[in-house]
């Protein structure tokens, strides 16, 4: 009996090692391909990777910046992972993040005099609501069998930044910096607290809580069973009386809300005001994180960390090798290709 239990544990560990190895292989292949691209433009890939390592793990500040980047990545990854369990593909994390940032800013700008203990929860609620509405619309369209949610969430990504632009060029343009298209700075009570003299902020705790929430709901609750049932076989789920429409819309809304919290974290803790380009593509990176992690919570945590490093590659190469920030998009695209390349295997391991 005990031997069998030990054997099972051993097998579990072996399975985990295999998964870790597979993650590693994806990253290594992607980095190798990216090296070729760097070589083509005449840059030194070894130096690029060495710099990246030095700037992220080399000192405490660099490392703290990784954790700063992890908060939005975790949130946007959960925003992809949760709908994927019900069989929906949410590519709209970026737009939902922006809408969350927008509505959270509305809260911060409308009630600047509220104390932090009221204003921050209010901003979080606003951020959640902004993302939730942005994702619920595709959810409703999908539930009514009108439009595929992949298309609508993707397209709405391009609408959200325009709404923000409208407000920061127009009604919310700050007085003190009217030459820049950005809102006025938030009051101190609208800023999420940071820790240890770094930019690590309370949003990280929020992100970890969201990840825990995701795991608990999907694996431990009766709603989770029904969500997974719909994801596993929508026809059977419908025949067994599970309300598909209600679940589809609710799951999309909650996922969008979680992405919206990422936007709230960015404007409240990092930017301190609403401006354009407040996300360097966290929503898209979050999609890759969730996809690579196979929607497993531990995988999401690990992959969010890896992607924090990868997204910093852009900044670092900009400084050290004079490459535009956009090179990081090439790297992420390469990773996406590698992930899609091993897609058939992924399903079986789930």
């Amino acid at each position, binding site marked *: 009996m005990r031997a069998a239990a030990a054997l099972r544990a051993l097998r579990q560990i072996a399975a985990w090692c295999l998964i870790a190895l597979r993650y590693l292989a994806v990253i290594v292949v992607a980095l190798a391909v990216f090296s070729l691209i760097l070589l083509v433009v005449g840059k030194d890939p070894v130096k690029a990777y060495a710099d990246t390592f030095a700037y992220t793990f080399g000192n405490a500040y660099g490392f703290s910046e990784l954790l700063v980047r992890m908060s939005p990545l975790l949130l946007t990854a959960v925003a992809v992972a949760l709908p994927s369990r019900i069989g929906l593909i949410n590519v709209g994390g970026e737009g939902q993040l922006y809408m969350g940032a927008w509505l959270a800013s509305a809260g911060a700008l409308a009630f600047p005099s509220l104390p932090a203990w009221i204003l921050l929860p209010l901003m979080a609620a606003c951020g959640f609501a902004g993302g939730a509405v942005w994702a619920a619309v595709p959810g409703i369209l999908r539930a009514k069998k009108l439009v595929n949610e992949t298309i609508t969430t993707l397209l709405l990504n391009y609408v959200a930044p325009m709404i923000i632009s409208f407000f920061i060029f127009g009604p919310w343009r700050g007085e003190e910096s009217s030459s820049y298209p950005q809102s006025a700075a938030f009051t101190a009570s609208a800023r999420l607290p940071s820790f240890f003299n770094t930019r690590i902020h309370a949003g990280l705790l929020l992100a970890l809580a969201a990840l825990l929430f995701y795991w608990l709901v999907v694996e*431990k*609750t*009766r*709603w989770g*069973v*029904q969500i*997974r*049932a719909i994801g*596993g*076989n929508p*026809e*059977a*789920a*419908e*025949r*067994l*009386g*599970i*309300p598909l429409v209600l679940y589809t819309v609710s799951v999309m809304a909650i996922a969008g809300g979680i992405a919206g919290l990422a936007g709230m974290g960015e404007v409240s803790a990092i930017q301190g005001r609403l401006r354009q380009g407040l996300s360097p593509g966290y929503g898209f990176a979050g999609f890759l994180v969730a996809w690579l992690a196979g929607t497993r919570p531990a995988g999401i945590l690990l992959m969010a960390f890896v992607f924090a490093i990868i997204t910093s590659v852009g900044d670092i190469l900009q400084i050290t090798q004079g490459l535009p920030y956009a090179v990081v998009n090439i790297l992420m695209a390469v990773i996406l290709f590698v992930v899609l390349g091993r897609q058939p295997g992924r399903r079986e391991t*789930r």
Partner: protein
Amino acid sequence: MGAGVGSELVEARGIVKRYGNLLANDHVDFDIRRGEIHALLGENGAGKSTLSKILYGFVQPDEGQIIFEGRQADLRSPHDARALGIGMVFQNFTLIPAFSVLENIALFLADLPPIVRPADITARIRGFSERLGLSVDPSALVRELSIGEQQKVEVLKLLLADARFLILDEPTRVLVPHEVEALFSTFAALKAEGYAILFITHKLQEVLAGADRITVMRRGRIAGTLERQQADEAALVSLMFEGGSIAREGVSRRPESKEGAVFLELRGACARAMGGETALREVDLCIREGELIGVAGVSGNGQKELSDLIQGLRPLSRGVKRLFGRDASRWTIRRIRQSGVAFVPEDPLGMAAVPGMSVRENLLLGTGKRYNSGAGIDWPGLEQDMDGSFRRLGFKMPELAAPIRTLSGGNLQKAVIARELAHKPRLIVALYPTRGLDVLGAAAVREMLLAARDSGSAVLLISEDLEELFQMSDRLLVLFAGAIAGEFKRGDYRADEVGHLMTGSRRARQ
């Protein structure tokens, strides 16, 4: 063709095929002679389909070889097999519905000229069809043909492409009795011209009616090959089940007693068709407590639509649906299930289970709010109830933590049945519940439905298996083109009459 009738045409030697841990074909030695009709018999998962697909080059064996006309044949794809004159009709036909018969056949020809002269092909079709009992109008669109006619087109396709060895995977599954007879007479005509035929089935009567030799497979191996003269039902069953035998249920008798309460009533129920579906037209149906009503019909005549309508998956466009005395026309699926309606589907993995989830979680699905406990689930309560249900049915409860897709087809069907019957449903809708099950599994399901009926549930049994329907139904309805074409009382069934109603070739007697 050097050798004559009776010599070996195809021979399989030591065929081994593995799918993961499953040994689908385990050192199979097998042969087909010229001019014989050979039946391949066995329960589900015995390896019949795998073997036939290997013979057609559709699946490559891990070990072993195929000898065709005395020479080793290297069948790497169906293309190689066709070049040798081997043809196969799959369970799901490979016809293009929007094309005519002629076009479908022409598409399949290896020697199709760049410019097709329809008259030539028509002449070639006629050349075969008249003397082999395969007459089909070459200009008809395939989508307008009945299933039986489509099967003829499939066979013609192979003949025009010069196949001399025909493999048919469960050809009778979709046919009504008189079509089965016609198919067997076509087999006989083909045999007379020297064709070799291999057909797969798990119906004993057909084997005895139509085959010259019978090979029985069991768990990937050849259990035995019998000449027809040596074969009888008992011998075949004992080969199929290693000496087991089916308990022959007697004709079930329902005490002709009081009229029970009406559990389900449809009055003038209509439903619109979407896509390739069949619209329901003015269906009147009434099932009482303790009654088993059979619905016969060729599939695609509104069976699925009728069952979906009862379960609330599709709205009524006209008419009334009443459940247990209340108007249920607009009830949701959930409400209908909660009122005591259970569903036993033809395809449990597709329609009633979530393959990737555990058996335990699957048993929970569809039980409504019964096992809610806060945000979580009362798993022990569920397990206890399900254990009771499995025990009442005489089924063994499977490993609860395993993903349900690891269960065999029969055990999966049993798990779904145990779940559906766990809470004593008042109405059971069973849609082809024994399709795809082996003889023993099918017998268990039939017994279960009869037991439910005897304990006061109402059962609606939708099936294509006329023998099953004749044996079990208290009343029998025939569904054709979305309408009830006829109704029979117990003991009043005549196979040919039901068969003709099923195919629309005769109006109901009034």
